[in-house]
């Protein structure tokens, strides 16, 4: 009994403290929650769009030689390693130049049929919607746009067509972003976000595609997001069944897997505490909107002190962009290969 009253006293004190934090404007819960939801939503978006693009790309790339695809994959996996080392070694000294980094061998744009190479990039947040904010004040919206710009450059250099849902610091609804992707007839859609997770429990990167989930945590987030989207859970199930009666879910998952592993390979070299949270599906209403495979990638975690410092460095953002690029590109080539072998 003595222990029960001790537990009670402690719990009461914690409940009071938590309320005092709210009164005093310390809002870890709110910030944390909002960013989690947003990130998850975005992640889903990315995963769905991206797989679609990859899928599309694989068909586009079908005339390419298998040997070339292999080279490219090797280059892609090697590139992050080389880059990561200087970043770690210099710990806080940004290596501005990116020219020393190996990147996947450029494709000859001529071998890519025009219809199969459009990637829609969706830099998360913008305008009044800051996303999460690093302890130093750097907002997510700036980071996502910067990474998207870098990724766009890489993709265009390799013969891909890129459409951005925003190119400036403007706010845009998720619905609008989906509509833009559809209007642009993108082959895949990738939404870029940065996570915020409570410091105590380090979590890493994760990539989402549209689909059902077995994870109650994700279900919870999805349910929250779907409320905002105007779908009931019942509506949503129906939509989901229709949307994924086709092949896109598989493609989305494979794309997500490629992007996730490229991201993780890169980041883990720089920040060994990053966890690979893997590829997940989540039933996000917003992803239903894009007509192409779409995925959402949480490329980093602003709540992790080391990650936050690294994200302030241009070289690190370039590393992330290249990891995303190699994920997309290797997936496209893999599909191409499978297509050639399997007929």
């Amino acid at each position, binding site marked *: 009994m003595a222990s*029960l009253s001790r*537990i*009670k*006293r*402690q*719990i*009461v*004190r*914690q*409940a*009071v403290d*938590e*309320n*005092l934090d*709210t*009164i005093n404007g310390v*809002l870890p*819960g*709110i910030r*944390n*929650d*909002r960013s989690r*939801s947003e990130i998850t939503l975005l992640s889903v978006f990315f995963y769905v769009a991206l797989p679609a693009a990859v899928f599309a790309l694989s068909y586009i790339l079908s005339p390419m030689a298998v040997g070339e695809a292999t080279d490219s994959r090797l280059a892609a996996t090697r590139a992050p390693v080389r880059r990561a080392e200087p970043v770690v070694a210099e710990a806080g000294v940004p290596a501005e130049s990116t020219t020393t980094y190996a990147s996947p061998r450029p494709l000859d744009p001529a071998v890519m049929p025009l219809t199969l190479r459009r990637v829609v990039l969706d830099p998360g947040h913008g305008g009044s919607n800051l996303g999460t904010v690093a302890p130093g004040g750097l907002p997510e919206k700036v980071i996502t746009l910067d990474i998207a710009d870098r990724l766009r450059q890489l993709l265009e250099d390799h013969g891909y067509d890129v459409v951005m849902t925003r190119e400036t610091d403007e706010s845009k609804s998720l619905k609008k972003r989906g509509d833009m992707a559809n209007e642009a007839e993108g082959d895949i859609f990738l939404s870029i976000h940065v996570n915020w997770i*409570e410091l105590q*429990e380090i979590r890493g990167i994760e990539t989402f595609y549209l689909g059902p989930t*077995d*994870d*109650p*945590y994700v*279900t*919870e987030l999805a*349910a*929250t997001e*779907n*409320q*905002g989207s105007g779908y*009931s*859970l*019942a509506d949503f199930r129906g939509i989901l069944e229709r949307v994924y009666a086709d092949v896109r879910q598989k493609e989305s998952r494979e794309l997500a897997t490629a992007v996730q592993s490229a991201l993780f390979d890169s980041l883990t070299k720089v920040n060994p505490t990053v966890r690979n949270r893997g590829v997940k599906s989540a039933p996000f209403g917003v992803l239903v909107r894009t007509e192409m495979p779409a995925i959402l990638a949480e490329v980093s975690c602003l709540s992790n002190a080391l990650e936050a410092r690294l994200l302030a460095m241009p070289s690190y953002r370039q590393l992330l962009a290249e990891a995303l690029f190699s994920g997309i590109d290797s997936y496209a080539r893999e599909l191409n290969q499978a297509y050639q072998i399997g007929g």
Partner: protein
Amino acid sequence: MTEDGGKSGKPRVLTVGVDLGTSRSAVSASNGERHVIDSYVGWPVDMVARKVLKKKVLIGDDAVENRVMLDLRRPLEKGLIREGSERDAEAVQELLSHLLSLVKTDEDGDNQKVRAVVGVPAEALRVNKQQLRNAMEGLVDSLMIVSEPFAVAYGLEALLHALVVDIGAGTSDFCVMNGRYPTDDDQRTLTMAGDYIDEQLFDLVTSKHSEATFSRHMIREWKEQHSYVGEAKDPIVVSAPVQGKPTDFDITEEMKVACESLLPSVTETMIDLVARVEPEYQAKVRSNVILSGGSCLIRGMGQVLQEALKDVGGGQVRVVKDPVFVGSDGGLALAKDAPASDWEKLSS
């Protein structure tokens, strides 16, 4: 009969626990008053309605009865204040002030300090913490907001190695108690609960019997009378009009399917939360699962969840006796246990 009652001149303190639910809200006070209302708030739609109703705002049954003349709201419908909705925040205010008016006694009048613990759906606390506080702060002298399943756990003194599963109307809230105030990680919310069953049942019944007319209200009443999971006891036969003529329908199977539609997500969430507990305590938590909320009255629910625990080593699920007031009573217990010095800090 308030705590500081009798001391002349000094304001009396009324301590209250409030459960702001998505469908029902309850209040328990230190003066022994307990009330429950439907979580509906309605504003007359125009001048005419205002004149007829002679009120600026209607609450609970009153609001439901006059719904045609009202902008009717359930402020926490899916466990959340709708984003950017001033009206939802206002409705929360109206609900709380109405609940307080039900327990305040005239004799204490203005010379009464109110200290309130308000339990809200876990998801609302996670997402709308500041909004909720802003909306409710001015109505009481001191305010503490907690998650609803936590209030339930506190009231039942299930503070260590316990799991509360609160299946209400709009949300199913889960909360593991580890001997500390639960963090976000100790809690889960599914926006799938009694309302979801109602939707399922409505869809199943209307699509099978398109010739008849069913109202959402009838469906919910049938559910509350006959709901079950697992084995059916007796056939469920209900009556609904077909072209104006009362006709009997057997909805035994539809009832089962609708009620069981919650089970996969609920069991999965329950098992997942247990799995996150430190391994040496998991068995204790499994043997201390507490099922609360109006939807815990679905016949067989406790057994089926207990059955599901067998797959992960077995456990025990207990169903609370008084789901209506268990949350507000828990809030009241917490409010009484918080020292006066803390209440001072929490005053607005």
